């Protein structure tokens, strides 16, 4: 006669092979089965039924069973591999060594934990210094990412979400390769990304409660309508920028976490811009105006490369909006000044990332300069198309900037010049010099004759 341990071993083998006839052959006629998730049943026929119809069926997870251990008159076998914790199978026997009771437990009294492993604790990663003298800015990313943790390689080698500095899982245990397509640093990198991320968090603001909404006084209807048209333009374009920045995150591999983190702040800023200016448009007797022609929006959607996207959103659109926000004639109340001022502050960071990224991109390979020029030309043409065709926006700027149409037109010209200069200076900072000579003629025309 087989021993209890041998019967238990056979039971496990039959269980693994899903050999239910074999399993049933080991059972006593009055066998009881207790599964905490499904209650208890007794009698060979009922138990057989339950064993054959286990939830999960053929797709039930494959468990790894330990060797059976005697436990008084019973035999216990523990199993691992269930996604939600170890299992314990406890078999009791009658005097013919037939299985009389089957108890399967998860946790509780029958729970047996797996043996200690702790191989993960031996991962040969760098031991970083403890942070000290944190100062007002606290424990920043730059301070945390010391030594090898702060070094972003030119090419990130892992296709999944392995964090930089962690010990990578063995190839077979890395799961699905992710859909990331950007593994080369020069395609996304900016040296200032980590600092801009922390700065953005320090400079966060809340439109609902940190804008002096009560300071907005009734304006002449046409001035309010003009401002609202400008706010409509801001809301729409910021949503457009926000959507596409969001969409590109899944392309950027995990090794460049500073960039992903920084972009998250830019995305959140853009959401806030949409929200804040929409609120402003609805507070003072007005409402939204007319949508944009959308040439630039379309161009942003159509960007094939991440750097191309940054060129449109951060460099071109960013420069033009920053100059708009800095214009002294637009705000008509404290709330307006706060809104434009806060947006300008956010845009400064967006420009800083764009500048640093373009510099890095061009420095990596000087021939990239020609790619940037292509994107600039394309972006400028589309920006020009929007400005040229957007009659409501043009007229709104004229009415909002001046006390008279004549003054408004003069100030619009000043604004356009300021926007162009901001853009050219931004490009210079990004090591793209003398671009004035190659500004797209259509854009130059809208600047000169707004």
């Amino acid at each position, binding site marked *: 006669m087989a021993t209890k341990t041998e019967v238990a071993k056979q039971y496990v083998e039959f269980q693994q092979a899903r050999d239910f006839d074999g399993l049933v052959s080991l059972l006593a006629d009055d066998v009881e089965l207790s599964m905490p*998730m*499904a209650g208890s049943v007794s009698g060979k026929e009922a138990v057989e039924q339950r064993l054959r119809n286990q*939830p*999960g069926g*053929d*797709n039930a997870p494959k468990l790894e069973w330990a060797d059976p251990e005697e436990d008084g008159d019973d035999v216990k076998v523990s199993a691992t591999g269930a996604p*939600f*914790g*170890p299992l314990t199978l406890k078999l009791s026997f009658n005097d013919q060594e037939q299985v009389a009771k089957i108890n399967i437990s*998860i*946790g509780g009294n029958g*729970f047996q934990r797996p043996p200690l*492993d702790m191989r993960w*604790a031996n*991962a040969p*990663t760098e031991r970083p210094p*403890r942070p000290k003298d944190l100062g007002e800015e*606290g*424990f920043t*990313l730059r301070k945390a990412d*010391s030594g090898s943790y702060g070094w972003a390689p030119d090419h990130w080698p892992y296709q*999944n*979400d392995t*964090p930089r500095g*962690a*010990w990578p*899982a063995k190839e077979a245990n890395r*799961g*699905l390769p*992710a*859909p990331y397509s950007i593994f080369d640093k020069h395609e996304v990198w900016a040296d200032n990304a980590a600092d801009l991320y*922390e700065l953005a*968090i320090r400079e966060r603001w*809340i439109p*609902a*409660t940190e804008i002096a*909404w009560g300071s907005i006084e009734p304006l002449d*209807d*046409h001035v309010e*309508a*003009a401002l609202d048209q400008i706010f409509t333009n801001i809301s729409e374009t910021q949503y457009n920028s926000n959507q596409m920045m*969001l*969409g590109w*995150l*899944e392309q950027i591999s995990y090794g460049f*976490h500073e960039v992903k983190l920084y972009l998250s*702040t830019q*995305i*959140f800023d853009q959401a806030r811009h*949409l929200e804040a200016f*929409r*609120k402003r448009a609805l507070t003072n007797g*007005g409402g*939204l105006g007319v*949508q944009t022609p*959308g040439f630039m929006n379309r161009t942003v*959607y159509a960007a094939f490369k991440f750097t191309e996207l940054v060129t449109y959103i951060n460099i071109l659109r960013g420069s033009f909006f920053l100059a708009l926000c800095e214009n002294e004639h637009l705000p008509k109340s404290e709330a307006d000044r706060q809104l434009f001022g806060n947006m300008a502050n956010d845009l400064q960071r967006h420009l800083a990332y764009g500048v640093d990224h373009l510099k890095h991109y061009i420095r990596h390979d000087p021939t990239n300069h020609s790619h940037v020029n292509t994107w600039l030309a394309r972006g400028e043409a589309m920006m020009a198309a929007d400005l040229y065709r957007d009659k*409501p926006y043009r007229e709104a700027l*004229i*009415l909002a900037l001046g006390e008279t149409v004549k003054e408004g037109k003069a100030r619009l010209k000043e604004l356009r010049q300021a926007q162009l200069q901001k853009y050219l200076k931004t490009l210079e900072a990004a090591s793209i010099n003398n671009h004035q000579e190659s500004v797209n003629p259509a854009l130059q025309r809208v600047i000169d004759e707004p």
Partner: protein
Amino acid sequence: MVKAETLEMLRREPDAEDLDLSWIDAPAAERGLRVTPGKRGLTLEDISVGTYGNPPEETRNQSGRMRGSAPRPDAQNLGAHWTFKSESWSDSAMMIYEEALQRQWSSATDIPWEEMPDLDEDLELAMSQLCTFLTQVEFIAGDVPGKFAPNVSADHFETGLFLASQIMDEARHLDVFRKRALANGIGLLQAGPGAVGLLTAQSFVDMTASLHLVGEGFVQSMFRMGELIAHSEVDKRIFRLAAQDESRHVAFGVMHMKHLLDTEPERKEEVHTYLDRMEGQVGSTPNQAGLTGGGDTTEALAILLGGGKDEKSLDEGYRKLMAVRRRQFNEYLHRLEVVGLNDRKERLPSRIRAFLDDVA
């Protein structure tokens, strides 16, 4: 509405001959709104009035025109936006977005890093391993919603705003758990298979089922038991703040799914299939197995929960881990009941039903 005489006066001004002013003369968008701030400031809910409220159930807006603004006949068609509100809408999006703005925190300055005590080395190792896992998976929860953001119609832009806030939160989570691993002398340890599987979501509904109802929900339950896991005030604070963020994400997902199933009940079986996949019932590795449940993370959690790696502590740690699991599954089932999937309990695999309070 701008008075006719004002317009006439503007048109008569010097240099005004090229002004059209039809956009101001006959505005196509509703005007005359004077929304004032309420107790919580000027919120999105406050401005969701008139034609600016009531997002359309179905929209042909493919140009990115913001809800309520006037269309142009020559606007570019981006051809990328979902038509139906039910695809992405959550009644909680406005409120959650505003709450997210109010509750932003800084991993650099809102965590008392300088008060970090020296922990027993085994506990520190375990915490670093747990943080390695968390920093690995947290931004997947940023990449996934990002993937769908370009398709959210400007008529339903509140969803886009919420997604932006979630991604900001996930950035901070990647950041804070990375910093925590690097703060106390150990550093990052063993990476695992991660959570890339979540990126296989092929629709927004697939995403909210797999990411918000399952993934984020399970992480939230774990964070809410952070008092048991943490061995310092520093770690407790991290878990508290992160749990607060995760609650918003889960709430968005729950309300999105509820809206979907209320308005399109015929999609119930479709949603069940996403849950089947996440629970490991379609023959592939359960995505959720890696989330808070993988081997290395499980052991690290058990050490933290038990307070050490000696036999007694480990026994205690695994017992508490089972309590964490129990909470995760019970809260999961509760979410499913709230969204209208009352029949899910019967469809759960036995290994999950084992953890439900009223079954054991």
